[in-house]
């Protein structure tokens, strides 16, 4: 999970942990990129509005890297505009969740994607 908000990190981690899903949290896109190359997670939850390297920048980098481009990505963001939705769709994200997130739906979709990828 890549989100600069610690409160969101704690929240999502708590809920997915209850479902037995291991969550690794990162607060910025730069650290995130190094981590995913090493860990190859089953799924990435990405916030768009982050300082320095934005979520969109991170998304573009991931999709250009063959090693990690196949990792499914969910966008979890307060930036729920048509502009961002279109950009994300073009960049091939798996799903888009505007904040405040319907957590039960998020958890359900996370489980679906992880099971499909298993």
């Amino acid at each position, binding site marked *: 999970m890549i*989100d600069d*908000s*610690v*409160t*969101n990190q*704690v*929240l999502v*981690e*708590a*809920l997915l942990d*209850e479902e037995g899903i291991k969550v690794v949290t990162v607060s910025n896109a730069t650290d995130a990129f190094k981590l995913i190359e090493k860990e190859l997670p089953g799924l990435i939850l990405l916030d768009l*509005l982050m300082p320095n390297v934005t979520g969109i920048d991170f998304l573009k980098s991931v999709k250009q890297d063959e090693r990690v481009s196949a990792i499914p990505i969910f966008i979890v963001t*307060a*930036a729920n505009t048509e502009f961002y939705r279109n950009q994300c769709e073009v960049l091939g994200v798996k799903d888009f969740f505007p*904040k*405040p*997130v319907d*957590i*039960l739906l998020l958890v359900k979709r996370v489980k679906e994607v992880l099971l499909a990828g298993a």
Partner: protein
Amino acid sequence: MKKIKEISEQFTVIDSLIVEILNCAAEDFLGLNERFKEAYAKSTSISANAEEVFAVYASSYTSESLLNLKLLFKKFSQAKKETNKYADSIVKSIDEVYDILDSIDLHSKNINQNLLTLKFLLANLKITGIESNSVGTTKEKDELFIEFNRLVNKSKLAELELAKSLHGNMKFLREGVDRVKKNMRNANQPIGIAIEIINESILVFSEKQQDLSLNLPKLQEHNAKLRDSIDSIITNLQYHDIIRQKIEHVQVSHKEILNNLSSEDESEQKNYLNQIAELVNIQSALLVRANKEYQRAIEQIIDKFKIIGSIAQNILNQCRDLKRIQESDTEQPFTNVAHKLTNTTLPVSKYLSLLARVNNLLQSIRHNVSLMVEASAIDDDANRFGELLLKRIKQPELMLQSNLIQQIETVTFDIITSRSQIGTLYMHLESKISDIERLSELISENTKSQEWESIPTTLKEIASNLLECDEKVSILLKEKFQASNDLGDIIHRAVSQVKYYEVFELKILDVIKLLNQIYSTLTGKEESQFDRDDLEFMRKLYTMESEHRIHNMVIKGNAGINDLSETDQDESNIEFF
């Protein structure tokens, strides 16, 4: 220039104070997140635990167990009815046997009497047969009388034996009937106890099933409310991040304006008043909006935390009611039922053994009576020999008294008739023996049937399920009590850890102070005492005395200022208009 620099610095301080307020909100939300994490785990475990309690009860208090209990109830009730029926039938049969033996006894007595009468008649006949001139005939007669007497004596002995056996059996039967009645009565007692226990268990089962069916929808309702509250907390916890991102976005503009104000370049500082106005607007909009959102979110979150706590307690109470925990009992009521069910095998065994005893009794009676019947076979030889003797006595050459001979014939005929009647009675006795045999077989079949054999296993299984169920539920409830206590602590901490309101009050007073200073700087006016907003100052300002002064000033003009006749000297009273 210097003025603008000073104002710019003051706005920077205000900005940092606002940031401190927002950071406090961030920390509070982080704390609430952590508490939520804990509360979520506890509340979901309480909810899952409750569902498990219901599942445990549902699996133990099953329709199958209830059906087995009902079948047992039916079986035992049937057994009780049959016991009474057997008792009546047995007593009736034995009484009939007794009556038959009684009749046989009567006929036997008649035979006895008639045999004695024969002896009497023979004795008379002997006397009347005496002839002075017929020695040969006298010898023949003597031999005849001896033979007849011997036959009569033999018959008498046989009758005596028969009577002895008869009386012995009649006594045995009398005692037998009493023992049968006593044993049957005794057999009804344990089976009655077993029926009571089974009945109690059925009631408990039915009550439990009803409890479950009534409480399950309530539990589902509680769980739904729990999920709703959790959803609401999750949604509201996310608002912090949404607000933060919006604030950051606004703060970019805010920083730009501040930078312009702080710039050394005079051309950048033109229209500083407009810029200050813009800054003030942005700051106030930021703070008011953020504050409102945080207030709403924190209020919702705390409210929902309390609801979660309350629902968890309701779920706990519901499960406690289901278990019917009573403070005064050392043992759980359903454990009691389980123990009673296990102990039911004892009265059932006692019942079966008493019936077996009755059966043995019947067998003895049947045996004795059968022996009697065998021994009662009419001595045809005796009858034939008697007929021959009679024929010889009637020979005219013996010249025996004919009327005596006639009487002997009559009495002999009576004896034969009585014997024949006894024979008929023995035939009736045989059919009674068959009845007793049949009853004995019925009892034997009943007590040895596979249904009785499987009863202890069935009872043990049901009891074992109940005990296991109670134990599992006790453990689950213990876990739940602990979780509920923990949840209470978590919620209490969540509420007490929110510092936003205190920090807001502290910082906002500083912000207001700075804004007032900026105003003074811009206008050149001194800060009036009424612009000071610290609470301590306000306390001193607004006392009863000062209020009366103001009041008088308004009513009486300046003349009222020194009129303190109605004032209260206690300055600790605060009164606000």
